[in-house]
C-alpha cells in the first residue's frame, strides 16, 4: 500500500537556511546550515526532502548549485529542488548534481511551453509544479509568483488543471497566509486542489501540530504534507511524526 509522505522543507536565502512567515523575506529567521539539516533529516528517515531557493526568481538568478550539491550529498532519500529553474539545462544540471525531482513555480505561469518540453524530456514524474496561493479581495484563491510577490490574476484550480494537462507529475500547494505561522494547514484550499486533479498533491504552509498532519491525511486525499517550522522550531521530528500517525491508523512508513 502506498504510504502518506511527510516531507521536511528547507528554504534557502542568500546561501543560508531560513524560515519565513507568510513569505516575508524581511522577517525571516536564520535557522542554520542546509547540509547539516539534510543530514539530520536523512538520519531521521524523512520520506523525502524539498529544498527551495526562495529568492532566486525574485533576484532573477539561478539556484545556488553548490549548495544543492552539498545538500544532495547528505541525502539517501528523494530530493526535490526548486528556485529559479527556467531552462532544460537548469533541470539537467540539478539532476546531475543529486536532485531527483525539480520544483518549478514562477516559470510554470510565465512559460507553460517550457513545462511541456521539460515533461517530454525528463518525464512527468520528475516535474513538480509548486503553486503559491493567496486569497484575494473576492475571497478567491489567486496564484502568486516570484516568491509570493507578484499577483497573476489566475485562479489556483484553473492553473492546477492546466499544469496537470501539460504533464506535471505532482502539484505542491502552499498557502501564503498560513506559511510559517503554524496556524494549521488550509484544508479547504488543499481539498479543492486534490479534488480537481489526478496527480498527487503535496500540501504545504502552516502545519502546527501532529494532529494537523492527521487532519490533513484524514480529511483530504492529499499524498504528502510538507512542513518547515514544526521541524525547525519544535522538538517534533519526521520519525516521531510518522510514529504518531502510524499509531493513529494512518498509512505511513513504519
Amino acid at each position, binding site marked *: 500500500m502506498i504510504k502518506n*509522505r511527510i516531507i521536511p522543507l528547507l528554504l534557502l536565502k542568500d546561501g543560508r537556511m531560513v524560515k519565513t512567515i507568510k513569505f516575508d523575506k524581511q522577517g525571516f529567521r536564520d535557522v542554520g546550515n542546509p547540509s547539516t539539516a539534510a543530514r539530520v533529516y536523512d538520519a531521521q528517515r524523512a520520506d523525502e526532502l524539498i529544498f527551495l531557493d526562495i529568492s532566486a526568481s525574485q533576484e532573477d538568478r539561478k539556484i545556488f548549485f553548490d549548495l544543492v550539491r552539498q545538500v544532495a550529498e547528505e541525502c*539517501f532519500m528523494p530530493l526535490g529542488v526548486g528556485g529559479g529553474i527556467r531552462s532544460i539545462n537548469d533541470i539537467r544540471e540539478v*539532476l546531475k548534481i543529486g536532485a*531527483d*525531482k525539480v520544483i518549478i513555480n514562477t516559470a510554470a505561469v510565465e512559460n507553460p511551453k517550457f513545462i511541456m518540453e521539460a515533461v517530454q524530456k525528463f518525464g512527468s*514524474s520528475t516535474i513538480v509544479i509548486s503553486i503559491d496561493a493567496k486569497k484575494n479581495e473576492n475571497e478567491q484563491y489567486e496564484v502568486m509568483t516570484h516568491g509570493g510577490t507578484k499577483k497573476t490574476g489566475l485562479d489556483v484550480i484553473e492553473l492546477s488543471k492546466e499544469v496537470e494537462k501539460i504533464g506535471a507529475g*505532482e502539484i505542491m500547494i502552499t498557502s501564503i497566509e498560513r506559511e510559517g505561522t503554524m496556524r494549521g494547514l488550509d484544508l479547504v484550499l488543499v481539498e479543492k486542489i486534490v479534488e480537481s486533479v489526478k496527480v*498527487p498533491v503535496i500540501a504545504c504552509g502552516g502545519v502546527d501540530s501532529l494532529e494537523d498532519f492527521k487532519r490533513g491525511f484524514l480529511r483530504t486525499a492529499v499524498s504528502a504534507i510538507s512542513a518547515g517550522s514544526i521541524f525547525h522550531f519544535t522538538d517534533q521530528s519526521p520519525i516521531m511524526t510518522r510514529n504518531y500517525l502510524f499509531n493513529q491508523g494512518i498509512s505511513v512508513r513504519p
Partner: protein
Amino acid sequence: MIAIIDYGMGNLRSIAKAIEYVGGHVLVTDKVNDIKKADKIILPGIGAFRDGIAELKKNGLDLELKESIIEKGKPFLGICLGMQMLAKRSYEFGEFDGLGFIDAEVVHFNYDVLNGLKVPHVGWNDVIFNGSHILFRGIPDSCDFYFVHSYHLVPSNKMLVAATCNYGVDFVAAIHKDNIFATQFHPEKSQKYGLKFLENFINWQC
C-alpha cells in the same frame, strides 16, 4: 569498476553517491570505451522513454550495452526508466521501440482499476519478493522502497518477475533474467534497504 551510463537525463549523482557509500568504485560515463572496461553496468532512470532511447542511440551506447550485457554477460542493473528501456516497446507519449533485451511492453497505469489513486505513483510502497534472490539478501520481504513513475513494465514471461508491488493493480517491481536485474523502484533513494540492495549488487557474481 561499475559504469553508470550517462545519457544526459538521469539522477546520476544520486546513484553514484549511493554506490560509493556502500563501497563500490563507479565511473559516470557516456563513453563506449569506458563501458567496455567496466565489470558491471548500471543504467539509471529518470526521464521519458523516447528521449532516453534516442540519447542512447545517438552515442552508440545501445550497441555497446548489447555487446556488454547480452554477448559478454556483464552483471547489469537497470533502475526505473533504466528498466523500462530494456523492453521491446513503450507507449509513453506514443509508441516507441526499446532496447529489446527483455520481451516486455511498458504501459501506463490504467485509471479504470486505480479507484481514484493518483498517477504518477509517487512514494514509498511495499515490495513483495517473488522467491528469494541474492540481491534481496538481508532485506525483509514487504519492506518499503521509493517509487516515482506513471508507466510500468509488463513482461510476456512472468517467470522473470523477481518482485511485485500493488498500486490498485499488482505490477512488476523487479525483474531478473540471467545477468540482468532491474527495478522499478529507486534503491538509491530508499535509504537503508536500498543501500543494502546496492551493496548486494556490488557483490553479485552471476
